[in-house]
């Protein structure tokens, strides 16, 4: 799905989280929103997912105005920073949640839910953990379960907030490839937020460098490396 961010701005009381920003995200792209904390990247991601509403501006999905769509109507697979797995449910129930939450007429039968969850557990290469609770999983496993839960609803796009932030370096490298593979297999338009420039450069097709609620530069990783547009970008990617 093609996403168009059109002059989106966001105020929280008297503080400006986002100055009007515009950004086209091509269908099927893997995009990194890169910037330090307070740069507005997470706010922008939450606006795409419908968890936050912009003070002004529009969001277009495949050319149609989606600004007023509720979070449920967005059908965005969202992976939260600390994964936000439902701690009182097993891994199976976590992944099945979105399917069970559907209105009765769209809800798949129990056998179909079983089949889909099993398939997703295979996709994240954790077929044996269905009956465990989140607090019995490692950080890397939790991240993959959160990803499977987001994919279970057959989302129109995938949004990830610092998906590797809470993991140690080795697991992080491993899971980067995992996300890349899932993206390539599903073809979903994917946007992830990170403050780690290596992660953005290695993983994304398109990197959006943000600072102080503004977009500093948009480009392919190699172009941003070769030709940083502003002193901020140069300094940030050198760090």
């Amino acid at each position, binding site marked *: 799905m093609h996403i168009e961010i059109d002059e989106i701005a966001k105020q929280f009381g008297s503080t400006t989280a986002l100055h009007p920003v515009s950004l086209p995200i091509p269908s099927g792209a893997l995009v990194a929103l890169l910037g330090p904390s307070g740069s507005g990247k997470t706010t922008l991601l939450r606006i795409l997912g419908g968890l936050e509403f912009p003070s002004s501006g529009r969001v277009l999905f495949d050319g149609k105005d989606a600004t007023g769509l509720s979070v*449920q109507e967005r059908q965005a697979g969202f992976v939260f920073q600390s994964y936000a797995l439902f701690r009182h449910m097993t891994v199976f129930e976590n992944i099945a949640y979105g399917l069970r939450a559907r209105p009765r007429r769209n809800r798949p039968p129990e056998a179909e839910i079983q089949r889909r969850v099993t398939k997703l557990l295979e996709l994240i290469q954790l077929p044996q953990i269905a009956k465990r609770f989140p607090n019995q999983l490692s950080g890397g496993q939790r991240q993959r379960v959160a990803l499977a839960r987001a994919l279970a609803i057959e989302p129109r796009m995938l949004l990830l907030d610092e998906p590797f932030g809470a993991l140690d370096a080795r697991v992080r490298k491993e899971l980067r490839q995992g996300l890349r593979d899932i993206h390539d297999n599903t073809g979903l338009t994917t946007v992830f937020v990170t403050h780690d420039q290596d992660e953005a450069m290695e993983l994304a097709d398109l990197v959006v460098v943000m600072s102080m609620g503004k977009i500093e530069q948009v480009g392919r990783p190699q172009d941003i490396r070769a030709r940083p547009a502003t002193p901020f970008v140069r300094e940030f990617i050198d760090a």
Partner: protein
Amino acid sequence: MSDAAFDHTDVVPGKWRPVAEESRTTRIVLIAIALGGLALLVLAPLAVVFAEALAKGAWAAVKSLGSRDARSAIQLTLLVAAISVPVNAVFGIAAAWVITKFDFKGKAFLITLIDLPFSVSPVVAGLALVLLFGTNSLIGGWLVASGFPIIFALPGIVLASIFVTFPFVARELIPVMIEQGRAEEEAALTLGASGWRVFRTVTLPNIKWALLYGVLLCNARAMGEFGAVAVVSGKIRGQTATMPITIEMLYNEYLSVAAFSMAAVLALLALITLALKTALEWRHADQLAATRRH
């Protein structure tokens, strides 16, 4: 740090205890103080109540509880608890929800307001209800004329109990809900769940233990409330006298077996709720562990 700091050659193995642990003597003294206090202040009074109730034999105790007034008091107390506890559970959840999930002006004021029943004397609360709904007030006069009196009747007792027990549920829930944050609820919303479904399948299971504690405390207090109820009930024997009020009246009339029998029943009700809570905790120990922070 120099290497000398790590020179352990003169350390005698086995002589060292963890830094956060007290010495053996200190531990024994502390435990003794705790147990002694518990025995003196909690167990002894409880034992005395049961002993006094059974002073003239079990039959005398049972007979005193079988009287019309005694049965009326027990029924009234259970009825008041059965109304005020669910009402306060709903109020408490709503208040905790509003306070922890949203930011708005006047939030601090609302929190103070929730605590008000803890800081105001129950007698004052009862008097306020009398002034507001008594026969001499505008609303009260009209209500009495319409055949729906509040003061010296069941509605007044229920209102007083609700007021006094209002903070329990909210106070238990607020810290738990603050600690858990909004992330799980947001996740459920992105997965397509409606607000009500999120509450039912995510919020409620996460707060259910805190809710249970709050409800149990609220219930214990609702059944045991004396001051506020004494003012609004009018202490009409067989009609508006709850268990605590009946106990006081019987005691003042030197009917000690009857007074202590009812006191024993009241204490027993509290012990049953406590046992219920422990049994639930025991049965759901694994689930309880899972809902803690991971």
